[in-house]
């Protein structure tokens, strides 16, 4: 069963069409990779799905109901959260407090704190629970982004380049978290530029170029696809 259906979604910024008639669906329990060159419209697509931007056309159906036009907090409450490519931290809040805020979506105070502690350990930030964002490295801030998403206990998470800047070895820990959560029933849509990472993590991939979906298929099919090579691999090196 498809948990998310994106139907002919478009978004224009002035004269620029950042997302153009994009359609795809996400099955429950899968990890869908989204790739595409810089400026292809991936982040914009996430904003359209999560309610941060209204689309100019098309529909987004989550768990059988249209969520277009709903505010982000209501979409989060329904079970769909996103991370931000440009990390968005709560200044002045410790890691624990920030993740607790997210856990409060579905838990009362004490249970939320306990949930937050668990998630922070899970993503490997346990020893930094009482630090504020100012003292965190970019990588840790990205893990914090993941922890906030996970703590809301969503059914679908949109992760926007949470592993950018990590070495291949460093991606293993967050990848394991994602796989474990997937095994527990969560669904992921991931944007990632690091090819080996997304290739190994994703069950299926969607390729976006100039706002349009140009290919869809298994990682192996995607690597072999002519259009993808043209749009993507042709113009930049694999590690961006």
């Amino acid at each position: 069963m498809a948990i998310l259906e994106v139907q002919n979604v478009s978004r224009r910024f002035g004269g620029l069409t950042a997302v153009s008639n994009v359609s795809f669906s996400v099955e429950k329990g899968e990890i869908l990779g989204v790739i595409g060159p810089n400026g292809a419209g991936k982040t914009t697509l996430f904003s359209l799905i999560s309610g941060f931007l209204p689309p100019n056309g098309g529909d987004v159906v989550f768990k059988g109901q249209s969520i277009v036009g709903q505010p982000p907090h209501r979409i989060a409450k329904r079970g769909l959260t996103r991370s931000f490519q440009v990390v968005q931290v709560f200044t002045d809040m410790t890691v624990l407090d920030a993740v607790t805020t997210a856990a409060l979506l579905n838990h009362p105070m004490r249970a939320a704190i306990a949930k937050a502690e668990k998630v922070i350990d899970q993503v490997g930030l346990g020893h930094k629970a009482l630090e504020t964002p100012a003292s965190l490295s970019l990588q840790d801030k990205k893990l914090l982004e993941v922890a906030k998403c996970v703590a809301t206990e969503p059914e679908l998470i949109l992760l926007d380049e949470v592993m950018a800047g990590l070495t291949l070895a460093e991606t293993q820990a967050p990848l394991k978290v994602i796989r474990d959560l997937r095994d527990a029933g969560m669904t992921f849509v991931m944007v990632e530029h690091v090819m080996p990472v997304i290739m190994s993590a994703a069950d299926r991939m969607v390729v976006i170029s100039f706002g349009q979906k140009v290919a869809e298929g298994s990682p192996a099919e995607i690597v072999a696809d002519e259009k993808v090579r043209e749009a993507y691999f042709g113009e930049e090196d694999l590690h961006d």
Partner: protein
Amino acid sequence: MKPEFFGILRSPVLWLALVFTAVLPLWLPSYYLHMATLALVYVGFAYAWNIVGGLTGQVSLAHSLFVGIGAMLASALLLRLGINMWVGMLIAALVSGMAGAVIAWVDYRFRLGHLSFALITLAFAEVGELVVLGWDFLGGASGLYLPKDQGNLQSFQFGGSSGYFWFLMLLAVLALGVNLAILNSPLGFFLRAIRGNEGAAQAVGVNVLRNKMLAMAISAVLCSLIGTAYARYLTFADPYLLASPNLTIEIVLLATIGGVSSAFGPLVGAGLLIPIGEMLRGHFGSMLPGLHYFIYGLLLVVVIIALPQGLAPAFSRLYRRFSN
């Protein structure tokens, strides 16, 4: 509620401080008792304001409106319609709470941003003052004189300076308690998240509009309650004092100097500065007109420059250094 909250409630320091404050009227000369009462009024205002200005990080200049509603409306209801002032206090608080929620809604709907929040709240406060000054029902420019206090508690009369001290202390403690309770409950997390980053707060399911409205409403209700009691203490509901945006500026200054991000900032700010201001007036007020304002202003500037985080964080740093 976070367990820490109950820890604070059980803290002996808190109870000692409360008892110490509560026995002040038993020995303090009346001039100083008046000073202490004023300090309590402003501690209460500063805590009420801090819910919006500190926790949510929105510099509100609307708060004289809520104090004004509490003072002028409750007094007018008594004098014009014979409504018991306890009831008037609650009606005014309700009106203030709704006004606060509406102002927060207007700000959010029109997405006015940080600076604009200050400006639009100021506009509401200015309009409020004009309404009071122009509407005879609320006393107009000459204000409202309340009947002489005959010690009748049922009529909202507290029978002398000790009674008012204790009642205003109760309200100040209420404002402090509400702050601590919010800080340690989901609302406090939501407000701090909103202060930190609205978009990120929404992404994890925080209803920004609802929480901002709630914060503003709670803050307004507290200001209004204290406003009613303050007017009764002064036996004169003076619009130029109680409905003037200048009052908000004072409150903002006290909270800022105490430290907005600290739970005890408003207490330290108002608790220290109001008595200092009054004493300066006592000493220098008759020497040269305006001299005490000048000294007071200079003092504030020095504190703001030297301790941009406020007095309370500086004190707690000192305390930690000595206890180590």
